[in-house]
């Protein structure tokens, strides 16, 4: 394996990682502030991708499509928070899981009803098509590089929002003691709706960005949702920093495992068996990573006690 290919795979892993971060950030924020486990987060990812594909189909403009994904996911997010989710904050986790599972069923079938069962396609805009030459002579897809930059920019923005602004201060206060900040006159229910809509918008953006690489179809959200769970279990629930570290770790492990393991097994096995064993093991690698982290630190790398 050449160094160039290896660097390309590292970049791919990074791109996958920042996409997972956009999903995991919303989940971990919602859990940290409201104590809610939200399975419907995958549906918001799907809604973002479908909104983007529909708007790109009407207008032909990819950037309008991205804005549409943010707005659609945020609005749907705020709506389900106001109607369903807010009744779940005081319930136990089992009821939260089942109610949000019911939301997945409703959203998936409703999307199938509106858009049909066939996948939609979202094209990469011409400006971002093609490759760029990175220092060292590496050719890399401009679109994937843009995704990495958008992801890192969102991560930076989120850190600033939470550590420097008044809203962020309230979010942190809400994580620590929700009764106290309600008593201090902060309208906690508005804060909750905002946090939920913010998480939803990030999931929608992530769905739209990935939708241009893969196809946009019903059920696209749940595999990503489960990976995002792995990410926040590794990083520690409630920690944005943990979500970023966990996402990059999972992205790199998965991508590198899929390319490297068959090669590594190939050094001492016959090629066809090496491919089989290597790819089967690669599909389990991130879960093994999660098991390892659980053995070492059950609350995740950045989790509190």
């Amino acid at each position, binding site marked *: 394996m050449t160094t160039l290919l290896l660097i390309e795979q590292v970049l791919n892993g990074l791109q996958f990682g920042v996409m997972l971060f956009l999903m995991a950030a919303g989940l971990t924020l919602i859990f940290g502030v409201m104590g809610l486990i939200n399975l419907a987060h995958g549906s918001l990812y799907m809604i973002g991708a479908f909104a983007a594909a529909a708007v790109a189909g009407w207008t032909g403009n990819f950037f309008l499509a991205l804005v549409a994904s943010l707005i659609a996911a945020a609005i749907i997010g705020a709506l389900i928070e106001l109607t369903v989710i807010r009744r779940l904050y005081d319930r136990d986790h089992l009821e939260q*899981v089942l109610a949000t599972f019911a*939301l997945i069923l*409703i959203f998936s079938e409703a999307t199938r009803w509106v858009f049909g069962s066939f996948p939609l396609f979202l094209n990469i805009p011409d400006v971002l098509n093609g490759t760029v030459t990175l220092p060292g002579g590496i050719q890399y897809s401009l679109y994937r590089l843009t995704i990495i930059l958008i992801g890192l920019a969102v991560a930076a923005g989120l850190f600033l929002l939470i550590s420097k602004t008044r809203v962020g201060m309230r979010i942190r206060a809400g994580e620590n003691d929700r009764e106290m900040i309600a008593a201090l006159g902060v309208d906690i229910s508005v804060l909750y709706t905002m946090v939920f809509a913010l998480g939803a918008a990030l999931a929608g953006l992530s769905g739209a960005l990935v939708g241009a690489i893969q196809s946009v179809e019903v059920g696209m959200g749940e595999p990503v949702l489960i990976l995002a*769970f792995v990410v926040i279990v590794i990083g520690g629930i409630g920690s944005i920093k943990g979500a970023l570290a966990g996402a990059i770790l999972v992205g790199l492990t998965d991508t590198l495992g899929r390319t490297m393991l068959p090669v590594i097994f190939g050094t001492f096995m016959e090629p066809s068996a090496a491919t*089989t064993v290597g*790819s089967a093991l690669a599909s389990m690698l991130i*879960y093994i990573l*999660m098991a390892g982290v659980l053995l070492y630190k059950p609350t995740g790398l950045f989790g509190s006690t």
Partner: protein
Amino acid sequence: MMRERHINMIILALLVLVPTYAHFAEEPFTITLATRAVIFALAGVGLNLALGQGGLVSFGHAAYFGMGGYAMGILASHAQNYEPIMEVPFLIEGTNSMPVIWLVAIVMSALLALLIGALSLRTTGVYFIMVTLAFGQMFYYFTISWPAYGGEDGLSIYVRNQFPGMNTLDPIQFFSICFVLLCAVLFLVNRLNKSPFGLALNGAHQNEERALTVGINVYRVRLVAFVISGAITGLAGALFADLNRFVSPTMFSWQISGEIMIFIILGGVARLFGPVAGAALYIMLEHFLGGLSEYWFIYLGAILLFVVLFAKGGIIGKLSRKEISHDG
């Protein structure tokens, strides 16, 4: 207002009467539906032991359901092709005998539950839900990428496996086998719930600190409950594979884990017959709503949402007007 025990008896009676009627009316499809309901109920009874009694919200029971399915698929496919599973260091051959397959399914899913439980029980609450979900998904992807037993396409078994003295291809006879197994498991689980072990498990669910203070090894009690729970669900998986004569990675998918949970919540959490009532209701909804609309999952989702938000205690809770089970 009815006593919960009477409701349970009515549920069991209906589960016998409907397929018996269908047998004489020559409607084999109804018998198959009832068999599905019984098998799903068995899977639910398994999960209910961990989830209802133990408070361990496992979102990965598809792993054991699928493990049971693949135990059946692998053994039966080797018997079908006359190829031994392994020859060195000792010979293991495939089989098409149901009791052997059940035993293998139970042992394999118990071992898997031991492994997953030992890791997952280090965490609690929402971590536990996510970790069990992730481990379930791991086996889903593994079976897809492992080509030896059909990979993504799954594995077809052409003839249903044999049970001594019965014609298993006759729907009513296969239904009877599944029904007797369900009753046996219900009896055992009921005994287990009332045993010191079951009381310790329930005690640890209600107040972990007190259970620890009186000297209960909470981790070990939970792990044992988790293993038994996985083994029962694995048995259900083997029966389900035999019903369809087909296994595929879908049996490992997270939707199956979710559905098994739905049976419990529809029927009533921590009630012995909750999953039985829930699975029967689910199959009826699937059959009637599925006939009404292609998009019946929307209605299922709406019903589930309503039950979770407004009807605590499930159907049995509604019928007996008690939110918590007090059966004695």
